[in-house]
């Protein structure tokens, strides 16, 4: 083959033809290719992949950005990165919507009005220069997010050169308690790495490590390593929390304690271990004894409501497992007594020998470098006292995340110049005198170290996003600060103490140091390119020896002080979708149902069922939640899954944004009744908290107030797509007791009962028969797959009203099913998508063959052929087919994210999961070029690729050696609704449970791994 073959010819013709047609008719397609002269690595139609770091939260997972024709269209986890090993969470995927957010700043603003960039920089530089000249530079303050890499060092250098106040690394969730407890217990002001994967018995005191705690993707993946049933082995996980979080729902045993009694419980468990002589060896017995002296199992039991028997059993099982691990955190870890509680957990870990093995201080988390909340309070006081003349806020939103009582907003009024460097408008930027827009991390150079020994390298994965045909005018904050610093101090470029022309130069210099640190012997350019390709550099985790300090023995298990006279303790917890609130302006996250409650587009207050009945409120009734510090109004969500003395509200909602998109204005396409994107619904529970930092740790106490509830008499129905959590004995999600699972494993596959025989001859497939397996035992319900699918397959967002009315377009939905008693249910999470049935009910009913069976076993759906009778939608027993009720639109520039390999469906046609057909085709094309067949692992579906627990597999069922083929013959395998005889291509694997839900008492002892 030489020159132009037929296929390339058509490609060229199609591209030029499209470009010519674009000018001719209809709305202009705009600039199809952002580059006039494309860079070498951008080939039209062929995606390029760039590795970088996800900056949606401080976990710092490795990313691979898929760039198609100059636009990033998909984010994937970096398989080489030791943090997330190829997985990505729901928030990570939604990072793309931050990149293409319609509210992104187009250019610099002064007092809310557009201003030339140079002018804006000059205004700041003049102020900084004037203050520096007057020896008043201490009146300049700079607050950034948690920047542990070169940007942080550059900012610190800037602060040093200018003479400003030391920079604050503000993280609303900074886990100050953990650091304080480690200071007390081990004399180390850091947060270690918890090797959850190495444990066989895990006890968590409120640490929501499957949602937000420290590094959720890493821990979710670790958890599956520790807990998922594999070759007859499994670990045990006990979760202690007053409410059933997503993490708790994945526990073998959820221990519901009274809020604030974790410390007492931990000490009681310590006492049991010491009394029984089950402690691991070591010279720290005296300290442990001293701490346990005051503990009393019976008292702890009566205070917490946890049976003494449970405390003793868990303590003994934990100690006897010889590979136990106790973690603590969440909001239980941020009350007035939380430091003591967390020290008690440290003692417990010491007693079971986890410190130094499963708790590794050598690989400290980035969180250990965040500024405590008390520093923000000090800064607020300085601002209020008129000591700050210029405040520079870099990618932080304290106006939203600081408690209303902190007075931060009022204090801002006393600051003559507040400069916000941010990508999108927020509560903070609207108060800023100057806005100097920042590039999105996906457009920037940088690096970030999420944990000691791991440095992720960030590179621009695309040029600045174009809005209305113009690239957004924005800079890396490092570049802005370099430029401002030089101007302020009167140096030319490349001169003076800030000698680096650009941040990129600073970064290179830093990385030369890193190369030396890592003992690189190769030329720097090779090291640099290798790091760029790999996404950074990393070392194996280190374990530093720590010794228990005697001070740790002087703790008490006192309950935290709670302010207010209300009837219920308020539990404020970070949202698994919005984190501290920074994700709330992403429509994908708003529409992805909360895994536990399945609520979309709103926040809610979880109220114990008994209280709700007593108050006469039902789901959706608006309730005023009042604390001594404020009051919010939220729809009630009565539940049995919370302690009767507590109510819970997730963080993240209740934004008060002025932006065009975020303020809830309908999207530009006026004829389209769709995105009624009310992003600023709900309420921010942080407004109910007091502002005083906890003296022991410096953190903001989250478990600190009691609230009263008053029904308002009004309603705001919640948009909940899942009608019921009761499977009505339909066995959609199935489970098997551990003993039976082991027995099945030994016996092999039970008699084939998966599907009933069909009257039709079974279909013969020539080469491929695609299939999937989903392990319900591994699925934690994190919902990353929901958004990964949405991002890969151009699935539109429909808005609150439509979501409430059964019109969510998600091709993959994450279901939660409950079995057993309402107050102690077994929870099963189950991704449900097109089952690609062999005998598909949807296929014969289609009058025009739009739904048809492909020669590779997929249920094809030809959008072009679909007339929209919706018969297939009725026929599908799983109801996974989605109808396009409207012409859905993507508010610009969100449309730039669309995957060119996937059709955007028009109104009136059916759609559904295709098993990422475009990826199958790409894999087949590649295989054909290599003159071979597609082999196992050549391609992954989007949902499979992102799953931190590897619960989903995809492959060719005709390849007997493939992972999917093997797993689909697992003794735990079953088909959903198998008795209908659909013979689906998706095999689910039963969840392995320790005891029948609602069965007698405690779980049977879990097996040990390893």
């Amino acid at each position: 083959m030489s020159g132009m073959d037929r296929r390339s010819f058509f490609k060229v013709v199609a591209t030029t033809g499209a470009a010519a047609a674009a000018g001719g008719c209809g709305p202009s397609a705009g600039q199809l290719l952002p580059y006039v002269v494309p860079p070498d690595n951008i080939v039209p139609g062929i995606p390029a992949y760039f590795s970088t770091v996800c900056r949606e939260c401080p976990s710092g997972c490795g990313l691979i950005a898929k760039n198609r024709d100059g636009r990033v269209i998909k984010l994937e986890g970096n398989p080489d990165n030791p943090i997330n090993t190829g997985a990505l969470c729901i928030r990570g995927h939604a990072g793309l919507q931050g990149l293409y957010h319609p509210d992104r700043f187009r250019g610099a603003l002064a007092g809310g009005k557009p201003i030339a960039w140079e002018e804006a920089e000059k205004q700041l530089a003049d102020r900084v220069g004037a203050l520096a000249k007057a020896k008043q530079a201490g009146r300049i303050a700079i607050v950034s997010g948690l920047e542990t890499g070169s940007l942080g060092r550059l900012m610190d250098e800037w602060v040093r050169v200018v003479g400003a106040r030391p920079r604050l690394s503000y993280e609303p969730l900074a886990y100050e308690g953990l650091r304080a407890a480690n200071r007390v217990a081990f004399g180390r002001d850091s947060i270690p790495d918890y090797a959850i994967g190495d444990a066989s018995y895990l006890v968590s005191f409120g640490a929501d490590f499957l949602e937000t705690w420290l590094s959720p993707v890493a821990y979710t993946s670790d958890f599956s390593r520790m807990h998922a049933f594999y070759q007859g082995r499994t670990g045990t996980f006990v979760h202690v929390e007053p409410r059933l979080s997503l993490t708790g729902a994945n526990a073998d045993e959820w221990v519901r304690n009274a809020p604030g009694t974790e410390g007492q419980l931990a000490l009681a468990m310590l006492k049991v271990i010491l009394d029984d002589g089950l402690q691991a060896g070591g010279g720290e017995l005296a300290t442990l004894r001293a701490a346990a002296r005051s503990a009393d199992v019976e008292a702890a039991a009566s205070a917490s409501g946890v049976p003494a028997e449970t405390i003793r059993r868990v303590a003994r099982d934990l100690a006897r497992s010889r590979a136990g691990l106790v973690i603590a955190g969440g909001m239980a870890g941020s009350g007035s007594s939380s430091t003591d509680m967390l020290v008690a957990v440290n003692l417990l870990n010491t007693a079971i020998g986890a410190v130094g093995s499963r708790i590794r201080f050598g690989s400290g988390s980035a969180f250990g470098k965040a500024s405590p909340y008390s520093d923000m309070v000090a800064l607020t006081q300085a601002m209020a006292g008129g000591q700050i003349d210029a405040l520079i806020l870099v990618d932080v939103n304290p106006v939203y995340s600081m408690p209303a009582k902190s007075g931060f907003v009022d204090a801002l009024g006393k600051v003559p110049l507040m400069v916000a460097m941010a990508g999108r408008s927020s509560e903070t930027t609207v108060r800023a005198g100057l806005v100097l827009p920042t590039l999105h991390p996906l457009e920037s150079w940088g690096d970030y170290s999420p944990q000691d020994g791991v440095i992720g390298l960030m590179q621009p994965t695309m040029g600045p996003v174009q809005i209305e045909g113009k690239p957004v005018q924005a800079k890396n904050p490092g570049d802005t600060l370099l430029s401002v610093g030089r101007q302020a101090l009167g140096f030319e470029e490349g001169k003076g103490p800030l000698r680096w022309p650009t941040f990129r130069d600073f970064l290179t210099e830093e990385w030369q140091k890193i190369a030396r640190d890592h003992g690189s012997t190769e030329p720097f350019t090779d090291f640099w390119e290798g790091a760029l390709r790999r996404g950074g550099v990393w070392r194996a985790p280190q374990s530093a020896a720590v010794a228990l300090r005697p001070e740790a023995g002087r703790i008490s298990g006192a309950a935290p002080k709670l302010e207010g006279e209300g009837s219920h303790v308020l539990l404020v917890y970070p949202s698994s979708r919005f984190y501290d609130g920074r994700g709330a302006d992403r429509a994908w996250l708003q529409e992805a149902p909360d895994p536990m409650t399945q609520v979309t587009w709103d926040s809610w207050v979880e109220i114990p069922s008994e209280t709700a009945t007593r108050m006469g409120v039902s789901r959706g009734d608006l309730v005023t939640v009042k604390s001594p510090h404020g009051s919010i109004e939220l729809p009630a969500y009565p539940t049995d899954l919370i302690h009767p003395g507590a109510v819970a509200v997730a963080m993240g909602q209740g934004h008060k944004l002025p932006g065009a998109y975020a303020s809830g204005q309908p999207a530009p396409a006026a004829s389209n009744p769709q995105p009624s994107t009310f992003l600023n619904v709900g309420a921010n529970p942080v407004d109910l908290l007091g502002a005083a930092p906890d003296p022991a740790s410096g953190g903001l106490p989250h478990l600190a107030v009691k609230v009263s509830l008053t029904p308002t008499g009004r309603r705001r129905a919640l948009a909940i797509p899942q009608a019921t959590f009761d499977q009505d004995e339909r066995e959609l999600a199935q489970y098997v007791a551990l003993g039976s699972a082991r027995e099945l494993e030994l016996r092999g596959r039970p008699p084939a009962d998966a599907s009933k025989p069909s009257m039709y001859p079974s279909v013969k497939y020539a080469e491929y028969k695609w299939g999937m397996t989903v392990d319900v035992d591994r699925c934690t319900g994190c919902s990353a797959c929901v958004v990964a699918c949405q991002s890969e397959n151009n699935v539109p967002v429909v808005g609150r009203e439509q979501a409430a009315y059964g019109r969510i377009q998600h091709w993959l939905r994450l279901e939660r099913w409950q079995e057993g008693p309402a107050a102690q249910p077994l929870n099963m999470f189950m991704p449900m998508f097109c089952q690609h049935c062999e005998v598909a009910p949807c296929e014969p009913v289609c009058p025009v063959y739009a739904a048809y069976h492909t020669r590779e076993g997929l249920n094809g759906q030809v959008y072009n052929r679909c007339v929209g009778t919706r018969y297939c939608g009725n026929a599908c027993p799983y109801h996974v087919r989605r109808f396009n009720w409207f012409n859905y639109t993507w508010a610009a520039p969100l449309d730039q994210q669309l995957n060119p390999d996937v059709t955007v469906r028009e109104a009136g046609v059916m759609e559904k999961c295709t098993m990422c057909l475009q990826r199958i085709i790409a894999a087949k094309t590649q295989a054909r070029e290599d003159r071979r067949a597609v082999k196992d692992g050549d391609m992954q579906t989007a949902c499979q690729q992102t799953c931190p627990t590897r619960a989903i597999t995809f492959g060719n069922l005709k390849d007997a050696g493939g992972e999917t083929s093997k797993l689909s013959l697992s003794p735990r395998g079953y088909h959903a609704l198998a008795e209908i005889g659909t013979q689906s291509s998706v095999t689910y694997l039963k969840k392995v449970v320790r005891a029948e839900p609602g069965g007698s008492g405690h779980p049977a002892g879990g097996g040990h791994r390893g």
Partner: protein
Amino acid sequence: MSAPPVGSGQATWADVNRDVDRTLLNAGNTYFAWMTVIALILACGVAAWGWQIATGLGVAGIRTPQMWALYITNFVFWIGIGHAGTLISAILYLFRAKWRTSIYRGAEAMTVFAVMTAGLFPLIHVGRMWFAYWLLPYPNQRYLWPNFKSPLIWDVFAISTYLTISVVFFIVGLVPDIAAIRDRSTGLKRKIYAVCALGWEGSDWQWRHYRRAYGLLAALATPLVLSVHSVVSFDFAMALVPGWHSSLFAPFFVDGAIFSGFAMVLILIIPMRAVFGWHAYITDRHLDAMAKLTLVTSLVLTYFYLCEAGTAWYSGEHYERASLFARAFKSYKYTFWLQYICNSLIPLVLFWRKARTNLVILYVVSIFVLIGMWLERFNIIVPGLGYDFYPYTWGVYLPRVVDSTITVASFAWFFLLFLGFIRVMPSLSIVEVKEVLPHPLKHSAHGGHH
């Protein structure tokens, strides 16, 4: 009550001509007022449909899992209405049930217009109605054929056949009557009727062929009465949905169709008799016979209801049972029980002879039957889909403005056609009524030349 065996003894052939001709005179203001109201309602429906085409089906209340709702309910309802017409005109003709003569024309017109109404709903219902022709097996370059396995394709054939046969049958029956009208008209009207009469002269040769054609068409139409609604029922019975997947559906639907059709005939002929003064032709005996048939079909339907519930119950199938339970006791319980009250309990009144000839009672019962039969289809479709296999999606469908308007407008469309028809065409069969008039009276006829 023993009525004379035919029409009514008092009428003469001349009376027949006069009485039928009178309906074609210039209508009064009341008529036009009604027609205006109906046209306005229809215009709302057309506007609603236009809005739906422009924005997408989301403006109607359809959702997952109720991907079918009011439109298909209306479709099945109107198809069902059509059945009584064919039954009366064809089957009763073949069985020589002479009492049919005075009502069959109205019933046949009702059939044609009901099928024309029903035929609109698949178009209104589909997502891309501009491609609805893809359901037809037309030759095309890409060799794309419809899927003959799909019950919807069977529907296309069943409905189009039914519409064709009923229209032809209807027109054939009309020809001699149009000729009679032609002969009594003048001017432009005469010319128009002359065209419509297809050169009918009433010759013996023509009559012989006419009779044969009529009998043949009646024989052709008869199986359609049973087949069309059976095929429509397959739309449901062939799908897996609990509450749908039942071999009972074909006879169940046919009986229900005839039942609702009789009710509609009564609703139409009772006012016609009063307005046109046709007491001599449509006598109490006719109403009594219609009422009896309504009662019989109601009883049969009740039997099917019991079978349906019994099958669900004794099948032991969890899905079937749960579906029945959900329909009876969950969100749609009112429509469910109202259906049984309307279709099974209220028609029992017709056991009482006086009720069968009491116009008010008969009329009210008929209205309830129509409501009940509409609800029956609604209850099969909407709650049936709402509580099927997969509990995740269970939920309640609520009609919106668009689908409600179109539903109401479908009645307007039907009545517009029907009321238009009775003013331009003989809505009582002149020929057949004359045939059954007592022989001696023929001598006093003046105008007739048949």
